[in-house]
């Protein structure tokens, strides 16, 4: 191999392998969960999976951290939500069974900044739940927030 040949290889390497990242960003906005409206949702089958994936992990609403005093892991979430006062908004209730419009939880996961009274949307610094997922939670509340 001649010196010129080596030089060509160097040029080819430099041009062809300009450093680059070989994967795209982005992710599933539904986080692998069903992106559908469930007509008659239950906590166990339809709502808790959303809470597990989007809320009840380390640093947030886990048993250890329980931000805003709220633990949303399976077995504890219903008691933590239904009829409990909203710590961020005095006079409001996190989940009013049978009345989704008065439930602070839905305001906190919704896109209406004014309804949240300036607080950051949940999940914090993360992609919002899809409209279908939020509607599933709304129906669960409207139907009395049943466990099963």
């Amino acid at each position, binding site marked *: *191999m001649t*010196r010129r040949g*080596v030089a060509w*290889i*160097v040029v*080819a*390497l*430099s041009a*062809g*392998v*300009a*450093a*680059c*990242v*070989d*994967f*795209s*960003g*982005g*992710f599933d906005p539904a*986080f692998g969960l069903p992106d559908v409206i469930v007509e008659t949702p239950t906590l166990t089958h339809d709502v808790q999976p959303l809470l597990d994936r989007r809320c009840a*992990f*380390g*640093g*947030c609403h*886990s048993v*250890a*951290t329980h*931000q805003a005093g709220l633990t949303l892991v399976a077995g504890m979430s219903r008691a933590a939500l239904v009829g409990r006062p909203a710590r961020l908004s005095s006079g409001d209730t996190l989940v009013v069974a049978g009345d989704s419009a008065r439930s602070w939880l839905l305001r906190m996961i919704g896109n209406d900044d004014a309804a949240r009274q300036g607080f*950051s*949307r949940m*999940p*914090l*610094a*993360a*992609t919002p739940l899809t409209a279908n997922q939020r509607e599933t939670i709304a129906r669960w509340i409207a139907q009395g927030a049943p466990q099963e």
Partner: protein
Amino acid sequence: MIGGGVLALLLRCRRGGAIRFPARLIVAIAVLSAVVPSPTAAQEAGTRVHQVHSASEPEGRLLAYYSAAMVFTPVGSLSPGSRWIVGVEGTWIPPLNEAQRRPGIDKPETTNLAPILPRPRVALHTRVADVEVSWVPPITVADARANLVAFAVGRPFAEWRGTALAGRLSVVSGRVEGAITCNAGTAARGGSTLATYYAAVCHGHDSEDWFEPRLAAGEVVARHRVGGRTGSVARGQAWLALGARVDRSRFDIGVIRNDGSRDPDHPVLQLRATRPHGAAGVGWRVSRLLTASLEGFYAPGSVATLRLFGALAGAGR
């Protein structure tokens, strides 16, 4: 994809035959892999959630990206006829855009801490095999503090018209520390939501995250000598390496609580993947003692990058 041309180049390499290594070398590599400390596992086994991710998941892709950039490739180490070499390589780590820095969540992680991975390297030709060792001491480069070790052994098994085929095994381990999950600078530029995240989830402190590459790789290397008679020192070399790596790299999320301790409520992410990679490059003897090399490295699905290597080389086998 810009790296596609290089992949095509790499794919032209002829496959080598079976690699024959002395059992002692294989045992040495296995022992080295086992003894490199993994403090996280030792101190906190059983107390942390360990999430295993494949390379197709967002978290796994990010782990695989950084570990791929650290693969201990030949990068023009021992040129034909050289007995030893001492030098420093530099690997360009391309910055990730905001979407690529979101491993499954919407919050961009502060991963673009250091644009270059510098790595000292010593190689020695012995009668049994070529041995390469590297250690990146715990110094801070940009905003990352690395402490990495790497080890490789290679042994030629065939030669034809100035081209030698060799089998090569390598391992990489250690730790890179940085404020990736919680970073005051990122929070300050990210608006009120990230500021709230920094205050609430990060407890108002920069995180002390640990990225721990744990790689074992095997390659077949075709090395062609340029100039000089067989047995003497070559004027230069060109090489092509194809291989695969087993990747068990980990990311220990180090959110710091107000008492200074690590918050155990955050998981340790672990990659479980076996992935192919390839490298091609040229090296040239600039003077009697000095060599310079350039290598293109491609790990499909992770990174295509360049490595530069400057070294002192000792002649005479």
